[in-house]
């Protein structure tokens, strides 16, 4: 009860902070937009080519955007030493992670959903008929990015070379997630679209395993 109540209070704080500063959303939207537009003009892709490399390009852009978004996640708490205040006030530190994870996943998903129509238009790939399934894949992929990214952001915030540490830890760890998300997206953008349950199951398993690890060991990640 206290976990959910604390999580919802902290989640509200994360949303309020972001919607006032618009720091993370602006950075990620611009980054993804630049990547998608630049590749579109460089390769001038046909619909067939787009279906072949589009999903990979999209998920790479999402991954780099996520690492930009997740970097300040715990660094923001260090400026005014608010993390210490949170630790003193919240009995279960998992609530801090859960709130940040929910906010990061939501921001990432919002950015992705905003960018999908741009991708569809520039790369001539119809997405409307598979949009709900695509949102499901985006959600599972973003949740995986969010869980691992939030955990690693807590670790890297205490490190000396923190700007380098997060991508260095995040990119190898997320390779399986990136492959599964790309494969599931590619199957949906195929001329004969299909929801690949094997890749979806992989994504769900990835999310559950890392969420459980965060629940079990999250407390130690906040220690200096």
């Amino acid at each position: 009860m206290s976990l959910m109540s604390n999580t919802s209070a902290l989640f509200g704080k994360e949303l309020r902070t972001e919607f006032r500063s618009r720091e993370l959303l602006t950075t990620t939207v611009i980054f993804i937009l630049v990547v998608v537009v630049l590749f579109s003009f460089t390769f001038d892709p046909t619909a067939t080519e787009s279906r072949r490399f589009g999903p990979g390009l999209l998920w790479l852009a999402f991954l780099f955007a996520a690492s930009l978004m997740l970097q300040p996640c715990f660094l923001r708490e260090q400026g005014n030493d608010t993390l210490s205040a949170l630790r003193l006030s919240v009995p279960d530190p998992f609530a801090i992670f859960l709130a940040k994870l929910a906010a990061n996943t939501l921001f990432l998903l919002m950015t992705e959903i905003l960018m999908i129509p741009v991708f569809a238009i520039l790369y001539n790939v119809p997405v409307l008929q598979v949009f709900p399934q695509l949102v499901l894949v985006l959600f599972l992929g973003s949740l995986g990015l969010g869980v691992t990214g939030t955990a690693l952001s807590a670790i890297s915030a205490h490190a000396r070379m923190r700007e380098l540490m997060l991508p260095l830890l995040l990119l190898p760890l997320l390779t399986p997630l990136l492959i599964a998300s790309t494969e599931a997206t590619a199957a949906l953008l195929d001329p004969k679209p299909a929801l690949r349950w094997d890749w979806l199951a992989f994504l769900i398993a990835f999310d559950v395993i890392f969420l459980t690890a965060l629940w079990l060991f999250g407390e130690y990640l906040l220690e200096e």
Partner: protein
Amino acid sequence: MAYDELSAEENLWLFARLQQVANPGERAAELLRAVGLAERKDSLVRTFSRGMRQRVAIARALLHAPSVLLFDEPSTGLDPEGVAWLAGTLRGLRDAGCTILMSVHGESEIASLATRAVRLDAGSVAADTRAGANLHAILSFADA
């Protein structure tokens, strides 16, 4: 220890809720009045001076009416009016039975509230009023 992008009231409300204080809204409003920030309750903390931030931080520390308070240089950044306010607040808390442990450098209006003083030198106790040392001497760095 307050969020820049939240208002003074939102900061106090958030921590009151996390600490499961009964009626968090009322408690936040009460403390904002007590620290003299009721008129600026809706202003974002990032627009506050250092002294005002200090007041928000002190109000946050008092949310759950703690029986023990730890302060590290509580008057840092406060203007003379702020120091007088803080001294009054701490005096009130001390007289109400709250234990206050604070680190200070030298004599000040805040330091004069102490009922016991200990001078530390390189991590060891160099002088203690409980061991017969003079309180004024400890605070003024004279030979205790």
